[in-house]
């Protein structure tokens, strides 16, 4: 079912239903930057349209225009054939458009039901909230999507995926007929993602049109019927999902061929190198239990596991952000007991944290301030003076070394794209001269091109002797590792050599579904 596109020329559409949403000729300029130029998308009821593109391709701008947050410089929006002006989020809601973003707009201290009630059009009786009617309606919605969230639990106590479901339920309470989902599975487990796919099927069966935005291309191809690709603010084309595979879709997104993530070719066995860090019995209840881990010099060690398996908590113990309840660590054979990240960094351990915006960066500060933040203290300058000129020079070196795309090192880091922000965080950590660099989900929300560059940085560092501990939920990217350990429910369960670290194998180990494998794997050390 190929859609008409300006590039492909008109092809006879086989879809019989008229589109529920058409955005045509949308253009938007920010300052001198053309964020969108003549972009058109078409969404049919009961179908899933995936919107793909690298960071900065214009996906979010397009969605923001649809949501009434930004106004287009040119172009039209038609909803169910009717031309509409979407000047505010209120307009969007009235038109049956609904948006579920990565940052869910929920009040953590409210219950799920209270959050669902915050939407418009809830039943009222003389101005008083009709909670019973609301609950009935919410249960009906849960029934419709075939999954129920505990309505009386406070949202802060719910898992990420349950929170997402609360957001979805709130949209459906308003009878949304078009739902935009922005990176819905970014922090879902495989099981939760599978459940989401089921819900998407239910919704489309009901005639809801879904606009699906995700960097996970396999997932895009699995979920969607149609795929529209943007690059640098322009339409690349619209395709039927079944005509695409990951390689061809990547080519459309990047505009060139991207090398496959091949297993690292190493002439030497990295586990033969001297041990850099060793933990024994490392424990911090409830998330880290009796972890014995060994990292060799220059080794890229992957940590696979489900969200909540304790991987982030393990990283925090290694850098000194949290204190262990039991167990010990040695670095270079000497006892290593970091009392704070400051101790960790001094000892040669650095962490690229999971959430770059909230944990890795000072968004309003400049690229230069962020890059030099962890390495300001120069032991040669005992008075602790700071030279902005030297910091800027250091930052410029790092920017060119790591390929950060920014017009100036004095720009606020918050204005960069996700991939470039991540490169800033990595630069900051590398400048501390780490012997062990820990990366926690380094490519979440990072576009395909920047992802490859981050892998290159990791490989280069390892080649120069830095040890890498890479935590990732994207098991495909663990292919760059020499060895992958699997963490489940706080404990290391398996250690898998690179050659056997396939996605399917790691996934089954994470879920603990393959009992016989215990015998074939080496001890996790």
């Amino acid at each position: 079912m190929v859609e008409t596109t300006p590039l492909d020329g008109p092809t006879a559409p086989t879809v019989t239903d008229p589109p529920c949403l058409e955005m045509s000729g949308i253009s938007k300029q920010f300052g001198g930057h053309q964020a969108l130029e003549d972009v058109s998308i078409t969404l049919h009821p009961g179908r899933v349209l995936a919107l793909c593109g690298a960071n900065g391709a214009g996906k979010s701008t397009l969605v923001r225009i649809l949501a009434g947050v930004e106004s287009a410089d040119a172009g039209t929006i038609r909803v169910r054939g009717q031309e509409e002006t979407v000047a505010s989020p209120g307009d969007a809601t009235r038109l049956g458009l609904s948006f579920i973003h990565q940052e869910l707009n929920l009040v953590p201290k409210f219950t799920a039901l209270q959050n669902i009630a915050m939407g418009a059009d809830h039943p009222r009786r003389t101005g008083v909230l009709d909670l019973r009617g609301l609950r009935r309606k919410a249960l009906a919605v849960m029934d419709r999507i075939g999954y129920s969230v505990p309505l009386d639990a406070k949202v802060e106590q719910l898992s990420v995926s349950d929170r997402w479901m609360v957001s979805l339920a709130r949209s459906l309470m308003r009878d949304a007929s078009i739902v935009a989902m922005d990176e819905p599975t970014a922090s879902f487990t495989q099981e939760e993602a599978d459940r989401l796919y089921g819900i998407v099927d239910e919704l489309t069966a009901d005639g809801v049109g879904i606009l699906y935005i995700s960097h996970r291309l396999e997932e895009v191809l699995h979920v969607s019927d149609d795929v529209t690709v943007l690059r640098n603010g322009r339409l690349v084309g619209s395709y039927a999902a079944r005509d695409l595979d990951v390689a061809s879709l990547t080519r459309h997104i990047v505009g060139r061929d991207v090398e496959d993530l091949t297993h690292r070719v190493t002439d030497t066995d990295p586990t033969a190198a001297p041990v850099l860090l060793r933990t024994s019995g490392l424990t911090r209840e409830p998330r880290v239990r009796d972890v014995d881990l060994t990292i060799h010099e220059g080794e890229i060690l992957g940590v696979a596991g489900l969200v909540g398996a304790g991987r982030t908590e393990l990283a925090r113990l290694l850098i000194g952000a949290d204190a262990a309840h039991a167990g010990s660590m040695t670095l270079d054979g000497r006892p290593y007991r970091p009392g704070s990240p400051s101790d960790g960094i001094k000892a040669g351990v650095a962490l690229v944290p999971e959430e770059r915006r909230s944990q890795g960066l000072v968004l309003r500060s400049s690229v230069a301030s962020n890059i030099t933040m962890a390495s300001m203290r120069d032991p040669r300058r005992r008075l602790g003076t700071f030279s902005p000129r030297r910091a800027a020079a250091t930052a410029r070196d790092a920017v060119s070394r790591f390929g950060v795309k920014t017009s100036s090192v004095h720009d606020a880091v918050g204005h960069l794209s996700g991939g470039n922000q991540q490169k800033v965080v990595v630069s900051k950590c590398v400048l501390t001269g780490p012997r062990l660099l820990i990366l926690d989900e380094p490519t979440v929300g990072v576009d395909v091109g920047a992802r490859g560059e981050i892998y290159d940085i990791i490989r280069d560092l390892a080649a120069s002797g830095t040890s890498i501990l890479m935590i990732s939920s994207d098991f495909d990217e663990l292919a760059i590792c020499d060895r992958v350990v699997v963490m489940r429910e706080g404990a290391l369960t398996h250690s898998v050599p690179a050659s056997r670290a396939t996605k399917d194998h790691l996934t089954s180990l994470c879920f603990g579904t393959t009992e016989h494998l215990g015998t074939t794997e080496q001890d996790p050390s």
Partner: protein
Amino acid sequence: MTAALVDVPVLQAPPRRARVWRWFGRYGALLVLALLVVGTSALEPETFATWDNFINILNQSALSAIIAMGLTFALVTGEFDLSIGNVASLSGVLACTAMVSHDVSIPVAFGLAVVIGAVVGLANGLVVTLLNVNALVATLGIGTVAVGVNYAVAGGLPVSLTDPAPFIQITLGRFLGIPYPVFIMLGLAAVLWFVLNRTVLGQSMQAVGGNPVAAQLSGIRVDRVRVVAFVICGICAALTGLLLASRTGSAAVSGGDTYLLAAFAAAFFGSAVLRDGEFHIIGTLVGVITVSVGFNAIALIGLETYWQYLFQGLLLILGVGVGSLARHRAAAAH
């Protein structure tokens, strides 16, 4: 089906408008100061636009500026300090009591004031970081304790020196025709600017204020940085308190209390000067001087005292409000 649709003309914001708003956001507060100066010069050319009055305005600004620049450190790290007014009162009373009852010299009294400010700042910092109490609550509590100590020592009565002349000389004395407090203010401003902008400590403070989690994971000792900011804030407040006592040669028990709101007003107004809502030393200094110029103009034009409050309140709202509005407009028109 995409070709035939009619383009809807949408109002396109010219980038020029963004530039105008951005300019307004950064320089609007300075513009207010310039308008004040030009306007009053036109109205009162004989008395306002003179060298003597210029020095007078700086002198009037000095004490507020010292306490407000100290407060800027707490604000930069993302904290608040409500105890500064009480610390100023306490330091004046304790230092004067020491001079009256224990006959200590003036330099020792200054040293004592610094220690008092540092101790209270340390207490604030430790309550905030170790006990994890919100800074508003912590400094309100510590400030109230300071009031209690103050009354316990002075019994609620002003502490007057028997021979105040040398002490008064600190604020009345002049060098090259310029009062000492102006030198103290400018010297301290230079030191504090250097600390905030040219030291690792100052950069760390700005990082902690920007994102404490990121700062901590980058190896910055966040708690330590916060405590130091509170200590600097306390020391500046104590210095202001002692200089205030030196103006009359006697310390009133609640003499420094009024500086609390004035310091906050100046620092917040200053956050709209040249920067996009960030606290900084130069901005705070401009904020204090703008208020002084306004007060001076009100006095020279012969308006009644209540105009001072109207002016200061409106200045704060306008300075911060217009700055914030201008930034939003600039972002929207971007």
